[in-house]
């Protein structure tokens, strides 16, 4: 009887664990934000499909890869240091290096995971692709420069006109 009760409890817990695992896996897979989990040694242990897509690496290629290979060396050293010290990094702008070799501007977020004794067991890393934003930013800057040039030209012309009108008035006054 006692054994039956124990078996039932184990079975219930096991079902709960399965449901939880499925829920976590679904969120991780669904997330449009590229995510991965990095060990304290700096090795990528897990990645979601969005991360595989943005990096251009397959699951087999990305898992086991040192995280330093995906970012600028100096920047990633800073990121890892800050993550391990502060436990969190929010929106650090970095150069991401996907398989294509074409550098990609990205905003990086990290969050450390800790065990029961508060030892860091790794960290989650999320990316936000800034390519389009940077492109729009560049275009906007170009437009502003053009507008400034135009402004200088038109305002300059206006000032000259005012000056000429002033001179005409002075000459007219002299003649009169």
């Amino acid at each position, binding site marked *: 009887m006692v054994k039956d009760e124990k078996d039932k409890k184990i079975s219930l817990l*096991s*079902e709960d*664990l*399965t449901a939880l*695992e499925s829920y976590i896996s679904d969120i991780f897979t669904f997330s449009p934000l590229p995510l991965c*989990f990095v*060990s*304290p*040694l*700096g*090795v990528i*242990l*897990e990645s979601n499909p969005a991360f595989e897509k943005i990096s251009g690496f397959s*699951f*087999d290629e990305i*898992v*086991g890869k*040192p995280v330093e290979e995906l970012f600028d060396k100096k920047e990633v050293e800073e990121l890892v240091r800050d993550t391990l010290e502060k436990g969190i990094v929010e929106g650090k702008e970095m150069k991401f290096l996907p398989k294509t070799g074409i550098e990609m501007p990205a905003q990086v977020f990290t969050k450390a*995971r800790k*065990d029961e004794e508060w*030892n860091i*067991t*790794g960290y989650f890393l999320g990316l936000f692709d800034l390519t389009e934003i940077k492109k729009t930013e560049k275009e906007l800057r170009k437009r502003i420069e053009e507008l400034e040039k135009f402004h200088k030209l038109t305002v300059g012309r206006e000032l000259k006109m005012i000056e000429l009108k002033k001179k005409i008035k002075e000459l007219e006054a002299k003649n009169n």
Partner: protein
Amino acid sequence: MLTKEEAEKLIKIKGEVRGLGLRVDWDFVLREKGKEGLKKVEDKLAESGFPLKYKEIKPMDFYPVGFDVISLLAIKEIFNFNEKDMERMGRLVIKFSLFIKIFMKYFASLELVTKQVPRMWREHYTVGDLETPEFSKEKKYMVLRMKNFRIHPIYCNIHKGYFSKVAEMIVKAPVTCQETKCMFKGNLYHEFLITW
């Protein structure tokens, strides 16, 4: 070819495997061969006298280890997988493994992982024992010894792939894994040499 008679012999092998062990293989089939591929596996199992549907697998429950062998043989036969394909499957099933996620907290150093190896094995199988009699960070190698696991040679390449991928996750470098001793080749245990 996997026959009903062979399946009946295999199912009698002593030992059990976690449902998760079965499901990760089927997850691999689903990812690589789609729903049609998975259906072929389910049909083959039904044909061999041991029907099971993907959705019926309970990851934390225990199933006869022979059932796992039947499932692996069915996958190998249906998709005409060779040794390399089975090894690749072993590498890729890591993606779907809940136990790997649970044990990730030990992936901070080689020493920590090696201490957990026997426990990791026991989470998967009720038979066999896995240990790391030798490893050296300096000399860049690790030996994995698997005792009391004379189940079926189909596991050799699967485990080769699985161990090499797990090792890559710890040593931060591409690894080479060789099965240097095999119980099906007259040795007392299986042994894998991992170098990087």
